[in-house]
């Protein structure tokens, strides 16, 4: 980085303005070209996929020239595929998972944070230990469990979206309780006690007072659960077997991996549309995420 500054054609000048300018270049100015480089690195693939999505021909050839043509042909062509079904499945599954995770995680965090009961400490420790083992590692027994369950209750068997949601919800408590528990502890207990004195039951305190005070952490957990379920591949792939039940991750993987029939324009259009809900969530909830990240949740 330092060499970049020396290479810059800066005239040596002893006038105060020039000195300030030189100092600015050495300390701040060079950061702008670096920023441009990084933005190029970060955004180039995204610009490329946008360009491919808007290209008029659905073929791969000529796809290396960015924004040569702009048309909605690819987006319209998605209507002939199962893309919208998959999108609806993904949104339904991820949305239900997020809602369920938030409700169950918040309830558990409330119990651990506000009640003192036998087994509380043991329960917290157990959750900490369970949290260490990703649920997805047990995918074989999840598969076998659903195989057996499907013989008895078909809606909870393989190839059922409800079963997939249930599996995701099984991982919810382990992943989210601690994130929420810490946040619940920051809400002063005096608030609960005041409500109790005023005659509120525990349920009223929880639904009408506490939940409103912990909204930021609910947003973070909801977002992370949503993104997690939206992007999950391995569980969705082994559980959902028929095309009409696929999520986007499974369906679009099938598009790209099928080398003979891969249609790049279609994939690009699908990718742009599929990423919109997640991009929107991220940009709107940016400030919550930064806090949530350092509280211990990981994506990358």
């Amino acid at each position: 980085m330092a060499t970049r500054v020396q290479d810059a054609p800066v005239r040596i000048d002893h006038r105060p303005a020039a000195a300030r300018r030189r100092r600015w270049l050495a300390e701040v100015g060079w950061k702008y070209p670096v920023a441009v480089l990084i933005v190029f690195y970060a955004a180039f693939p995204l610009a490329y996929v946008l360009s491919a999505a808007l290209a008029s021909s659905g073929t791969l050839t000529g796809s290396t020239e960015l924004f040569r043509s702009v048309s909605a042909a690819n987006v319209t062509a998605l209507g002939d595929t199962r893309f919208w079904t998959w999108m609806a499945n993904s949104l339904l599954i991820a949305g239900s998972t997020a809602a369920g995770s938030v409700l169950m995680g918040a309830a558990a965090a409330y119990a651990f944070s506000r009640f003192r009961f036998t087994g509380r400490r043991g329960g917290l420790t157990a959750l900490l230990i369970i949290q260490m083992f990703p649920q997805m590692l047990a995918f074989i027994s999840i598969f076998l469990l659903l195989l057996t369950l499907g013989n008895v209750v078909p809606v909870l068997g393989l190839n059922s979206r409800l079963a997939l949601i249930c599996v995701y919800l099984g991982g919810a408590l382990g992943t989210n309780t601690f994130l929420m528990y810490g946040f619940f502890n920051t809400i002063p207990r005096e608030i609960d006690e005041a409500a109790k004195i005023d005659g509120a039951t525990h349920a009223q305190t929880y639904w009408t007072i506490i939940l409103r005070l912990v909204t930021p952490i609910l947003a973070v957990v909801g977002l992370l659960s949503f993104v997690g379920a939206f992007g999950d591949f391995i569980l969705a792939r082994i559980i959902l077997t028929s095309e009409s039940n696929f999520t986007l991750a499974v369906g679009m993987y099938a598009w790209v991996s099928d080398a003979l029939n891969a249609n790049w324009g279609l994939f690009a259009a699908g990718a742009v549309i599929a990423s919109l809900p997640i991009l929107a969530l991220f940009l709107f909830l940016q400030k919550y995420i930064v806090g949530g990240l350092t509280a211990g949740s990981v994506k990358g």
Partner: protein
Amino acid sequence: MPEAGTLGSPRDVRGGPPVRGESHARAWTGTGWGFVVKLVIMAAVNAVGLAIVWAAYVEGSWGILAGTLALTAAADWVYFSKRALPSKYLFPGLAFLLVFQLFTMAYTFNVAMTNYGTGHNGTKQQAVDALLIQHERAVDDAPTYPLTIVQRDDELGFAVIADGRPMVGSADSPLAAEPGATVDGDRITAVPGWDVVDRNTLLADQSLQREVLDLRVPVSDDADDGSIRTREGTRGTVYRSTLEWNPQNETLTDAETGVVYAARDDGRFVADDGTALPVGWQVYVGFDNFVRGFTDTNYAGPFWRITAWTFAFAILTVATSFLMGLVMAVIFNDARIRGRKLLRTLFILPYAFPAFLSALLWRGMLNANPDYGIINDLFLFGARIEWLNDPWLAKLAIIGVNLWLSFPYWFLVCTGALQSLPSDVLEAARIDGAGWWRTWTSITPPLLLISTAPLIIASFAFNFNNFTIIYMLTEGGPRFTDTSAVLGHTDILITMIYQISGVAGGRADFGLASALSIIVFLVVGVISALAFRRTRRLEEIL
């Protein structure tokens, strides 16, 4: 849950309007809408629970029956008892956790101790039945009957005329006399309750033909009597198994060759000369699967290479993306830069793009053919570089793509950590004469690592099992050439397990795959325990 709104607003308070002057919070007591909602939900839970119990009873699935019964009873106790207050909040989450995480983990251990997989699917009796069917042949003096294919709902059946009597049967119900059938010449043309499948329909439908060829209708309840099969759809022949099952000695005898296959402890029928029948049954094999993972010629070699690459992949991914994020955070954590908010938004774009789409996108961009792959075309002058098909380049590509995916995360984390560095320590260093370099080598990194170390370890554990990126980019390929197992140079342990398990098709070996996943469980557990010691969470609860 609708309780929230209704309970919170005094309008819905039961027991009349609040007396003037009294806090309306007082009037919250008593049975409200919340109770009604609870009743409705609990009624639904019990109905579903009982329905599952009944279905499990019909199917004879005693495990599911007991589990459902226990969960339903527990739910009733928790929500109708005045005592178990914390459980009311814990129960829903715990129920899901119990079934879909704890049980499956325990079950993984159980499966790892068995030979469960293709060819070892069920009980010994099921294996015997399957073998008897597999070895069915048309016996030399086999009787042949005129046959009509019939259908009802999803079930296919055969209608034959045996000894002048019309008989009907399907795969599940043995042949039985059907006096109501209409016979035209030597052929049945109508059967009450069944639709006759005519020849043109059969010829037009390939999958139906396959079903017809696979269909075997037992002659009677006794499996030794054989079954009716057809090769062309108009004539049925009695097939008998060449194997004979002797329940006393637990042997299968091949009537043609006279070879005797005896049941053995490892779940197979083996003859004296060592040949085994293709179908076995499920038995506990102890730690054999673990031993096999390390010694089997097909898996042992790949296993060590894949383990090494898994560690290299996880370490390199975390190291490269952390360093890049840290350098960026240092450069751009500078109040004098204008438009920092905009820059931050642009920087985190790759992080906000769903990871599976990123991986698929890069797969296309890294296409070796410069006509398709923009990386080769635009940045490498149209050279044909096999990014995803060369063992080393594929590894490089995976780490490169993962860097693109995860540097924004570390940029956000490091920026946050830098901003929360204790200023008094930095000030003290400055007063003591530490220059820019000294501060950046001796003061900041240790402080930074305190807050980021748990995240570094967590990220390592995450990438250790980063199935999506590997599978979406290379599917583990390029393939190893020195083993018949479907494994490749960029496979990590979790994709290897996926491949061996056969859950997505192919030959399944649930036992071996479960044993391997237990090894990964242990590795991840150790890593997480390290992370755990680093965090102060334990202090919070203890």
